[in-house]
């Protein structure tokens, strides 16, 4: 399977994306998936438009992208984490 390029973004690219980045890293390891994680500000997503496979973000985005966008707020609040993980795993395996 091709290594997936996953964008992990938040507003400033330093705080919540760090937590989400780590959570995905652990998930990928547990499931034996190879991913290329790129931690950025949400405003920088456009630059990766043609090369990314997935965007996981805690910030809102109104833009349309050619790859799935998953909201990862649950990693911060603890509410609905299971569902978010499931969505991410499905996207990584797709």
């Amino acid at each position, binding site marked *: 399977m091709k290594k997936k390029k996953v964008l992990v973004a*938040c*507003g*400033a*690219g*330093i*705080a*919540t994306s*760090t*937590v989400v980045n*780590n959570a995905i890293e652990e998930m990928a390891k547990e499931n034996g998936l190879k991913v290329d994680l790129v*931690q950025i500000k*949400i405003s920088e997503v456009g630059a990766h438009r043609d090369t990314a496979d997935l965007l996981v*973000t*805690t*910030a*809102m985005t109104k833009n349309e992208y050619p790859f799935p966008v998953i*909201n*990862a*707020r649950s*990693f*911060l*609040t*603890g*509410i609905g984490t299971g569902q978010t993980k499931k969505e991410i795993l499905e996207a990584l395996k797709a």
Partner: protein
Amino acid sequence: MRLNESTILLNVEAGTKEEVLRVMGNNLISLGLVKDSFVPAVTAREKEYPTGLPTAGVAVAIPHTDVEHVLKKTISIATLKEPVTFGVMGGDSSESVKVKVVFMLAMEEAHSQLSLLQQLMQLFQDEKKLMTIVNATKTEEVTELLYNNLGLNTQGGD
């Protein structure tokens, strides 16, 4: 990570999130922990990328901004006398949440705060501990809880 009682503000009276950010940010400026540009930067970012988190207990917000506005990495905490409306992180612009505790993060370096941030998120998910902060009448109660839960040094420094 610097944490001292002067960055803990209890029972702040504020009507809007802008007011909360100003009170907290100006305090950090007066302590020499962030630059003057921090307040407008954090306010602008909050507008564009809100940081309210509808956690299980009381809702919190974690306003922060780019590293160039920060002099020393710091967490500032404010409990609010009356809840203040913040936008919801990752929500659409109509979503809002009544926030009772604000954790203002002054990050100095990108990508270097993982364990602290993880512990902070754990704290948000612990309703009992959040209530301890909300109900605190002395700043020492908050610093002690943070010290025990975030592994921080209570006496300034790094």
